[in-house]
């Protein structure tokens, strides 16, 4: 068993900021992360390889800190008792002991079902970006990027840089909502610079506002998508090899819930020190509500300093956190999902991809529990992480409890 003063779960911006802040005062810190390399999603492929100077600086400091240990390709299974975590790597398992825990498990994409969404070639938006950063072959491929949020533009730019031909970026938000969001960017000049740079990179790529993917077509794999364009009667068909479609982000709450942390409106509840409802457990980044990299860095720093007992220094980041929280609120308002998105699935459209449970079997249920017991919805290996975000929008119910272990585990990891 390994002992640490502070364990940080997740090596994205929040986790790295938390680890650096805690370690700078000498705490013995472990960073547990399920990917082969640190960086999380936005700094995927390693913080040292990012253009963002904050990533490089955090990485430089963390790499030279003898009191920081990175445990990559390591997943938390559950807490056998307070202060301990059972973790699993591809080949082994271990128990880690902590004094304080900082949960920085980030977010996943909200993926919504529509006819054809299970075809090979249909991915999440951030999903295809992540795959592309891992070397997924996109040279010369025709890609439609769709869904909602500023992430779509970043995704399109990444994919284009990897050689993909972007047919269109399809944004469900309406033109007035987008206009209000753009106006609100005046409060965050760094985001304007980012938006302008993306616009330059994506010059010539159609940006379809108030539009959404209605269905995907193909026999064994994706061949085309049908798009409902804002204000148009007829659906428009676009040929493509990939559809990268994601409807915003959802916090990964499973670990916090498994440890008993209170959540509200799909986010972990924390106080001003990023402390959760459970003594000694903090949460930072998207887990407390989706807000992007700047908010994650501020929250991570506050959590790391507070957890290591440096509350006065933590207060220095309060202003920054408040500013980016406002940005997060504008983001949520600007890209609120339109009701039509809940009407796309047909009775034979699969909603739970792990167990192949269709919309027709689910739409009459009034709770997650009833659907689960009678259809197996959410009982497969993703444990409701994908379908739960969809049932919330389609039927108004979502997973009511977290399952242990929180990740698929080998029997030997648990009974050894």
């Amino acid at each position: 068993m390994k002992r640490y003063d502070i364990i940080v779960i997740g090596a994205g911006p929040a986790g790295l900021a938390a680890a650096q802040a805690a370690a700078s005062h000498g705490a013995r810190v472990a960073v547990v992360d399920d990917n082969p390399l640190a960086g999380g999603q936005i700094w995927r492929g390693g913080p040292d390889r990012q253009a963002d100077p904050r990533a490089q600086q955090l990485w430089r400091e963390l790499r030279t800190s003898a009191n920081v240990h990175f445990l990559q390709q390591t997943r938390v299974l559950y807490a056998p008792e307070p202060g301990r975590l059972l973790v699993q790597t591809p080949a082994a398992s271990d128990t880690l002991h902590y004094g304080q825990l900082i949960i920085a498990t980030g977010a996943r994409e909200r993926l919504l079902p529509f006819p054809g969404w299970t075809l090979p070639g249909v991915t999440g938006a951030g999903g295809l970006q992540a795959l592309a950063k891992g070397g997924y072959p996109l040279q010369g491929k025709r890609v439609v990027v769709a869904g909602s949020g500023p992430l779509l533009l970043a995704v399109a730019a990444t994919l284009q840089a990897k050689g993909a031909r972007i047919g269109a970026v399809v944004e469900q938000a309406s033109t007035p909502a987008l206009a209000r969001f753009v106006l609100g960017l005046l409060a965050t000049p760094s985001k304007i610079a980012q938006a302008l740079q993306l616009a330059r990179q994506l010059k010539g790529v159609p940006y379809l506002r108030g539009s959404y993917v209605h269905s995907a077509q193909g026999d064994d794999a994706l061949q085309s998508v049908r798009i409902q364009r804002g204000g148009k009667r007829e659906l428009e068909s676009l040929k493509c090899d990939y559809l990268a479609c994601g409807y915003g982000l959802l916090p990964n709450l499973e670990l916090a819930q498994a440890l008993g942390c209170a959540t509200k409106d799909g986010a972990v509840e924390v106080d001003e020190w990023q402390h959760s409802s459970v003594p000694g457990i903090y949460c930072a980044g998207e887990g407390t509500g989706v807000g992007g990299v700047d908010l994650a860095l501020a929250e991570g720093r506050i959590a790391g300093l507070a957890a290591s007992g440096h509350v006065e220094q933590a207060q220095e980041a309060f202003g920054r956190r408040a500013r980016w929280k406002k940005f997060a609120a504008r983001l949520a308002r600007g890209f609120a999902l339109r009701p039509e998105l809940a009407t796309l699935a047909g009775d034979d459209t699969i909603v739970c991809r792990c167990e192949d449970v269709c919309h027709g079997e689910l739409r009459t249920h009034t709770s997650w529990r009833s659907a689960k017991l009678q259809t197996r919805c959410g009982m497969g290996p993703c444990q409701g992480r994908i379908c739960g975000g969809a049932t919330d929008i389609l039927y108004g119910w979502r997973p009511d409890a977290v399952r242990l272990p929180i990740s698929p585990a080998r029997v030997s990891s648990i009974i050894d």
Partner: protein
Amino acid sequence: MRSTTVTLNIDAREISVETGITVAAAIAMAGSGVTRRSVGGAARAPLCGMGVCQECRVTIDGRMHQLSCQTLCAEGMRVVTS
């Protein structure tokens, strides 16, 4: 000089790829990108790209249910899709 490619075996076929790429990417380079069959028998390929959806799971070096999107290719690795 350190080699910049690794050779792995995907469904009994050798493929050489650059170091640092994921098994999911190598599977797409080697063919259709299909990683598994669903409960109903349909072909599935990676969806979330970040270790959540489990669609990309394959057998790697005899260990079942490994997530190909979160595994980097290594020399001599044996990958079986289903």
